[in-house]
């Protein structure tokens, strides 16, 4: 089972007494603000959860795996997520069915 925006809005409705439309808008706005910050070259630091960090990658040589032809991989900017200490500890304690 995966947590979705709909689930999150439902809980804002239950917990905070926001109406359903407000709850849905706030969830949407939250993720949009994080995207906008990253797009404007800000790292986003959410204490207790983690940091979204931007990294610029320089151009490097690549290869088309099918044809073997050499094509450069252009410079790009990527987002990485580094979980915070608190989140890491909570997740580490999880003993899943894979173990």
């Amino acid at each position: 089972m995966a947590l979705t925006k709909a689930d999150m809005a439902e809980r804002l409705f239950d917990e905070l007494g926001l109406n359903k439309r407000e709850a849905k808008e706030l969830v949407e706005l939250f993720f949009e603000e994080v995207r906008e910050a990253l797009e404007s070259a800000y790292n986003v630091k959410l204490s207790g959860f983690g940091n979204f960090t931007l990294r610029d990658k320089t151009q490097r040589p690549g290869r088309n795996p099918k044809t073997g032809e050499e094509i450069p991989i252009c410079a790009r900017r990527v987002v990485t997520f580094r979980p915070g200490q608190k989140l890491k500890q909570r997740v580490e304690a999880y003993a899943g069915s894979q173990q």
Partner: protein
Amino acid sequence: MSDDQEMRSMMKSELVELMARKQNHLAYKDVELAVKSLLEQMSEALATGDRIEIRGFGSFSLHFRPPRAGRNPKTGDSVSLPGKYVPHFKPGKELRERVNNSLHSSE
């Protein structure tokens, strides 16, 4: 290859501020509580082994790190470290594209 960039940072409180300005029918306090709840819901999901899927933003899941032999840096004794789960984020298509386009448009 990547190197540490000099990027500005946005903190949670600033994010709440921006959101509250756009939702001026809601009190700052409500927006703050909502953001707190969202982060708690996300942490809780991961802490119980669930994934998080946000279209256009990305997905969070757990990756398993198998047990390995480590060393106590003080004594040099070898210790066995148990396997563990770590949170992992995969940015969605829209986020990837918007962030990458911002690099090229700022040049």
